[in-house]
């Protein structure tokens, strides 16, 4: 599974933000691959660099950022060396994105028809009639009822769940190879979230795309993703098949993160108290020396303060960046 067809290869990617307070190393030598028709989940807390990774891949980093090292190869093409014209032709057509909050990513002054058709016509030389037919088909595909009617509506006339379906329809309208989803279900309710995840797993079989799924919600990743990478303070600390990583986490951060998730108590004897990770995420302007997790790690020893661990394979398909292994 790991040695499949790499669609996207990220090598030693380092991204920095230049701020008044200093340079923030948001991504620190990231190595990741996504194979064809694979769903890769990226899990991390705020400040871990997961969104930066998404924006670097699709070429939407803010102006105060700098890619100081590394390479992003998409289907054999080096994205960081490509011209903006080449990027523009890839973006939307072969790599597309679903953002977190559909209410802010749909344009409030245009009808759904205008927005979906514009994406199609931007990349395909078709007239409005054909574009409209394609849009209709795509809306039906994401299980929106009465697609004909929905095309005539403005975004505010749709519920959050329906808006997110429209976003998914737009991102899939040109049969992309890679979809980047940045927290696509965190703005909707639990039962709707469930429906959207189901929809994604179903569409995946019919349209055969790969996905970079960015979230802070571990439950979601274990439901839809084949593989998962856990990020902490700009580095990948653990990577592997999602079921295995969550049933048997290796990195102390992953272990602690799993334990800190509240679960309904099963009996009155069970304590309400949660296992917490003491302290807080490090300041990325001056991160701790050695392993960035060592100040919060219960297993840290002298080597962890001196030497930064590399992400290395410990068993088949499982990679961990920790001196314990």
């Amino acid at each position: 599974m790991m040695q499949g067809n790499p669609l996207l290869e990220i090598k030693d990617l380092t991204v920095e933000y230049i701020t008044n307070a200093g340079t923030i190393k948001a991504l620190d030598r990231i190595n990741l691959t996504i194979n064809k028709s694979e769903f890769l989940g990226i899990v991390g807390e705020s400040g871990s660099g997961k969104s930066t990774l998404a924006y670097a891949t699709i070429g939407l980093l803010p102006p105060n950022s700098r890619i100081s090292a590394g390479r992003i190869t998409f289907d054999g093409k080096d994205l960081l060396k490509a011209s903006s014209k080449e990027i523009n032709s890839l973006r939307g057509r072969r790599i597309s994105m679903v953002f977190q909050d559909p209410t802010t990513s749909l344009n409030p002054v245009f009808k759904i028809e205008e927005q979906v058709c514009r994406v199609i016509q931007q990349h395909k030389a078709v007239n409005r009639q054909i574009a409209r037919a394609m849009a209709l088909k795509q809306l039906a595909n994401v299980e929106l009822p009465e697609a004909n009617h929905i095309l005539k509506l403005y975004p505010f006339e749709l519920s959050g769940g329906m808006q997110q379906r429209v976003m998914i329809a737009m991102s899939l309208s040109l049969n992309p190879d890679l979809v980047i989803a940045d927290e696509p279900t965190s703005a909707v309710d639990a039962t709707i979230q469930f429906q959207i995840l189901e929809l994604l797993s179903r569409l995946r079989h019919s349209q055969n795309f790969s996905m970079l799924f960015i979230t802070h919600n571990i439950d979601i990743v274990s439901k839809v993703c084949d593989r998962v990478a856990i990020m902490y303070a700009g580095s990948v600390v653990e990577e592997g098949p999602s079921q295995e990583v969550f049933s048997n986490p290796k990195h102390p951060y992953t272990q602690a993160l799993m334990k800190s998730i509240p679960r309904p108590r099963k009996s009155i004897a069970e304590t309400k108290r949660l296992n917490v990770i003491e302290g807080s995420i490090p300041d990325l302007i001056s991160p701790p020396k050695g392993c960035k997790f060592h100040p919060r790690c219960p297993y840290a020893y002298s080597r962890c303060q001196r030497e930064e661990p590399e992400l290395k394979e410990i068993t088949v398909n499982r990679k961990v960046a920790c001196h314990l292994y």
Partner: protein
Amino acid sequence: MSKFIIVKDLKKYYPSGTFFNRRKIKAVDDVSFEIDKRESFGLVGESGSGKTTLGLCLMRLLEPTSGKIFIEDQDFTSMKGKKFKEFRASRFSIVYQNPLSSLDPSWTVEQTLMEPLTVNSSFSKAEARTIVQQALANVGLQPYMLTRFPHELSGGQAQRVAIARALMNKPKIVILDEPTSALDVSVQAQLLNLLLDLQERHGLTYLFISHDLNVVGNICDRIAVMYLGKIVELGDAIELFNVPMHPYTQSLVSTISEVSVKFVRYKLKGEPPNPLNPPFGCRFHTRCPYATPICGEEEPKMVEVSPGHFVACHNLELVKSGLIQTKERAALME
């Protein structure tokens, strides 16, 4: 009456529509429940279910349309003027979801924490300062935080300040409206533990409003599940998660992965109906896999299925047997 808080037939209708077509949104419709002292009572529901409105009505930040609220055997709903204000200030406090929008951005932490002291009681500056420092230590923050502004705080720190502020006037009841939803998992765990500590230390009663079943199931003793302004099920937290009886609760519990299932797991189709125009009869019947004709005609009453466990459903026998209506069944059991 002996319960700490008694809510009886509480209603909150919002006016809506135009001058010629006046309509009402029944945000909270005929809700009754009781809360014990030092209890954590959870309110769960999706957006638009009325859980926040109910929380705000409980401390009369919103005036209920009708119904009664008794706090320590006193009729809170009919209190007026100075007595009302003093009673509320000495009993209630609230913590909102997003600390960065509920803290004043132009005030330092010290000013924020000082405010409740100067409004509600007469302390000298020096006294107030000591109290503020204690309050800060109480929520696990260092004294140097006092001079910080909200934008200099992390989300977790800001929420700690909001909690400290809520506790300044020594309330007995704290309404927690999604207090950890804006926070990361590891920060959430720290804050939930802090809330437990504070509850033990100060003997607090919590009304915990959240859409996150994992959080509510972990921290609450009893839970009420709301759907379109109605409580559809109410009971002990552990029982509710192990033996949910209302089809809506079952579908909610189905969405969390780590639950031992003693019922037919299924997924809900469609989205909640428009609260302006809720379905007649049982409000859930349009999405319910167990719905029978009576559900569209008559509103179900709350029935006590086991001690302290209440459910509002016409077809409890059907739900218990797990027989989803055959037509729906094919669609649901993929």
